[in-house]
């Protein structure tokens, strides 16, 4: 009855796609119009926080090694931290601008967790490729998140930040439990099941 790991990735991909759309729309219309309805201001931070919460059952039920568990646990923590910090800033409960650094920090930790918990090379199989790809996307994307934190009203940084989530969504939608990547599939990986 439990969904396969790839399905969980696709569900999270949908979440990241929605996050991307929210952020892109905010970047296009500007903060003033976006926050004209109070619920909209809380939309993406609470969504990110909720995705962090949902990462805990993923950590519990879908990890088959300690390193996987630690990686998923760290994603859960930093997603909740970033979402919570952004919520606090929007609500006015947090005043220090340093809280804006929670999101770049989450990007860096998430990227490193991807890179450190993938022990196979890029072309071992598709999920290995995507782990490397997502890891470097997030590590390099930290600079975009940092720019957004330092210059929150800069449209270029906002748009780049939104597009990062779109890239993450596409990568997660491409994930399969066992499949070739660009024609490469290590015999050690096993046979594709579907």
């Amino acid at each position: 009855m439990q969904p396969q790991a790839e399905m969980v990735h696709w569900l999270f991909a949908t979440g990241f796609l929605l996050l991307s759309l929210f952020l892109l729309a905010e970047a296009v219309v500007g903060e003033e119009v976006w926050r004209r309805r109070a619920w909209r201001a809380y939309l993406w931070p609470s969504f990110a926080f909720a995705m962090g919460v949902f990462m805990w059952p993923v950590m519990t039920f879908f990890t088959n090694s300690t390193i996987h568990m630690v990686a998923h646990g760290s994603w859960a923590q930093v997603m909740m931290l970033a979402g919570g910090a952004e919520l606090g800033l929007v609500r006015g409960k947090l005043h220090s601008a340093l809280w804006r650094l929670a999101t770049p920090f989450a990007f860096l930790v998430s990227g490193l967790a991807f890179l450190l918990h993938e022990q196979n090379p890029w072309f071992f199989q598709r999920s290995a490729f995507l782990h490397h790809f997502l890891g470097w996307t997030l590590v390099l994307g930290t600079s975009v998140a940092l720019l957004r934190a330092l210059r929150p009203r800069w449209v270029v940084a906002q748009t780049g930040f939104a597009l990062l989530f779109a890239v993450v969504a596409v990568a997660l939608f491409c994930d399969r439990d066992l499949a070739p990547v660009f024609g490469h599939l290590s015999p050690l990986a096993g046979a594709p099941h579907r």
Partner: protein
Amino acid sequence: MTTSTATHVETRTDLRTRIVGALGPATILAGLVWAVVQPWRITLLHPHDQGFWWLFVEPPLLVVLAGLAFHRFVARPLLEDLAEG
């Protein structure tokens, strides 16, 4: 000068309206194109002997649903606010 500024503001608002209005439909279109290019990702097209999760989680349809939900619940109210100026 004032007319020029007003026209500029209207043009910017118009552009924003078009982009926000297009985000949802573009996402829906992407999901539909994906479904056509990789029909085997839609398990509903060959549902025989499939378990619940294979029928419930269909990536191209998730993309379409995300686009629909965004357009209906986020973009439309946002377009109303943009129209109010």
